[in-house]
């Protein structure tokens, strides 16, 4: 039996009551946390250094221009979209947030994003001068007639070349006119089995699903989706040809190591360790500043008939549809956009691309290549069910293709119907 009397309940009871009242008061004070005055919340992702840079370069600049506004930043390390969606579900979305382009149609369709068309039209702030932006990138932020954000980065894929390995093999660095055939040729001459055990220690190139094979499809004049976005074009001969070429780099031409080696030794790690001569990476990748390596940047090869295309990953800044003070959010959004574009390179604006060397001196040696690549860069054409598309593409097509489970045409035939269903 609970003989609380044994504990001297009267004294205890009084003490508890007082403590409870006091604590409840503190509790309530903790519960009311609305900051007074105008405030804007922004959610961003980033690594440890990027947070630091964001604080010192972007945040201070924006705060200086918005003296009476309290700006709160939510730094999200991983699982960015889980956290973002949870905040939205609870009706507490951040006012501004990063969003990578493949999520824009999904979020726009679900009504989470603010349509900025009316705001941007007639605003002659250079940060939102649509003429200055690269149209191929901005198109991914349009959906159903509205414009739901603007990109702050667009990284065209370029080729990082290990100069020393080139010199040792007696191969000249490529120029921008090289085609697939030359690319394979160069790769072969850079692949060497130094100790004669049948397995090369040095490779010309490396792939593991990156760079996306779609880039090669575009260079070949094909695409995975039709121009109107309604039909899957994976089975088109030009696309199949490109996918086959992609996997042949490992299987047939043997200029790239098998996936096992990549899993064991790392993907970009192979390049950093000096075991791979050419690496296709984003323009902003730090591969050209690896200590101990002399790296040059070159444009990606053209297709067999000389057409140029390169893939550009991009991310943008969006405003939440449910934001309370839209005018304030828009103003702050522009400030952040501009500040980030002066921090991250390459910003998808022609005026900023022209000043690449000044914004990021460490990339000055690659500025011409990057600028040139930006003129023909393309993002994926994104749909509302982009995540399902990506999963099917990876599991049913790319992975078996790279593993050598089947040839490109058979896999394309199998994957196309499922993909077509997503375009309904």
């Amino acid at each position, binding site marked *: *039996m*609970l*003989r609380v009397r*044994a504990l001297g309940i009267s004294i205890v009871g009084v003490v508890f009551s007082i403590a409870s009242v006091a604590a409840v008061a503190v509790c309530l004070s*903790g*519960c*009311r*946390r609305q900051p007074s005055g105008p405030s804007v919340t922004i959610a961003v*992702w*980033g*690594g*440890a*250094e*990027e*947070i*630091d840079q964001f604080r010192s370069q972007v945040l201070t600049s924006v705060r200086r221009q918005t003296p009476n506004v309290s700006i*709160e*930043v*939510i*730094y*999200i*390390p*991983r*699982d960015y979209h*889980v*956290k973002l969606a*949870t905040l939205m*579900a*609870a*009706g*507490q979305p951040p006012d501004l947030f990063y969003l*990578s382009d493949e999520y824009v149609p999904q979020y726009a369709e679900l009504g989470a994003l603010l349509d900025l068309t009316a705001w941007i039209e007639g605003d002659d702030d250079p940060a939102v001068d649509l003429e200055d932006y690269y149209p191929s990138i901005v198109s991914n932020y349009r959906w159903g007639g509205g414009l739901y954000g603007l990109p702050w980065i667009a*990284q065209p894929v370029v080729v990082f070349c290990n100069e020393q390995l080139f010199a040792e093999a007696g191969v000249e660095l490529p120029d921008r006119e090289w085609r697939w055939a030359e690319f394979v040729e160069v790769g072969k001459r850079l692949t060497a089995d130094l100790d004669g055990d049948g397995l090369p220690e040095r490779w010309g190139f490396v792939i593991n699903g990156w760079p996306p094979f779609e880039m090669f499809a575009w260079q070949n004049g094909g695409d995975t989706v039709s121009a109107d976005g309604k039909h899957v074009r994976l089975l088109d001969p030009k696309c199949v040809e490109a996918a086959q070429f992609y996997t042949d780099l490992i299987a047939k031409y043997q200029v790239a190591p098998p996936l096992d080696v990549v899993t*064991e*030794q*790392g993907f*970009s*790690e192979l390049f*950093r*360790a000096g075991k791979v001569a050419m690496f296709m990476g*984003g323009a*902003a*990748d*730090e591969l050209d500043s*690896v*200590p*101990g390596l002399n790296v040059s940047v070159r444009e990606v090869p053209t297709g067999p008939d000389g057409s140029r295309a390169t893939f550009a*990953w991009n*991310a943008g800044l969006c405003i939440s549809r449910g934001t309370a003070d839209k005018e304030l959010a828009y103003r702050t959004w522009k400030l952040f956009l501009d500040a980030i574009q002066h921090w*991250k390179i390459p910003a998808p604006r022609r005026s900023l691309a022209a000043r690449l060397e000044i914004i990021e001196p460490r990339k000055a040696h690659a500025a011409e290549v990057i600028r040139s690549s930006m003129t023909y860069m393309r993002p994926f054409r994104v749909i509302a069910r982009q995540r399902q598309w990506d999963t099917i593409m990876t599991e049913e097509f790319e992975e078996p293709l790279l593993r050598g489970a089947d040839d490109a045409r058979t896999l394309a035939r199998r994957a196309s119907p499922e993909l077509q269903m997503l375009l309904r």
Partner: protein
Amino acid sequence: MMRSVFGKCVIYLLLAAGAVFFLVPFVWMLITSLKGPEQAYQLTLGLKPTELRWQNYRDAWAALPFTRFLFNTLFITVTATVGQVFSATLVAYGFARFRFPGRRVLFVVLLSTMMIPSVVTLVPTFLLWRWVGLIDTFDPLVLGSWFGGNAFFIFLARQFFMGIPVELEEAARLEGASAVRVYWHIMLPLAKPLMLAMVLIAFVAQWNDFLGPLVFLNDFDKYTMTLGLRFFEGSFMGEAPKWHWMMAMTTLMALPVLLIFFVAQRRFVEGVSLTGMKG
């Protein structure tokens, strides 16, 4: 158990084999944490770092406000563990020793609360905490584990309690002690090995928790060490991961726990002494 020399040899051999197996990840982490930035990018078991950069630990700690993160993590972990262990053992005592209608059903309900992946309960739980206005505080992380998070421990403690002979308790109850008294003076001391195990497990679970802090905390100042650690993974198409710093912090996070375990496990030797048991 085995007293023979042969038996002892076998035991040592098995122990050593297993130890190697379990030490591999830790050694790998340690080695990676001591590599320089050029080598750190190779996520391999390169057993020869060119230099032993102990300053990685200092650099990693300085890269983010880990001191603050440490305090936050300690606060959450200690309060959560204390609350969890006490509330779990109390409830388990109720399930183990008292007959009341609906006991079996409630026990099955207890078990079934663990059968649903947190993936789908995340949103409703978040909504719940938002309703009381406690998002972006430590409360969901601590109080959440006091209540919902400890079905696991309740189950464990109940099993333990049901294995303890009734005689001691019955003696005390015949003398008129209250249930709480019995719980405090008899059950808890008898279940010392269990308590230690539970404290340890609860501590580690909170210490390493990632999803909770990620979802419920917005303010950078309130972040925990696991969150801080994740920032070393870099970002997609952005900053490259800093494996050496990440491993340094992971090692640092593991050490206190191992220390606590090493100290605590000696108490396991005491075991259960049943002197005073009648016949």
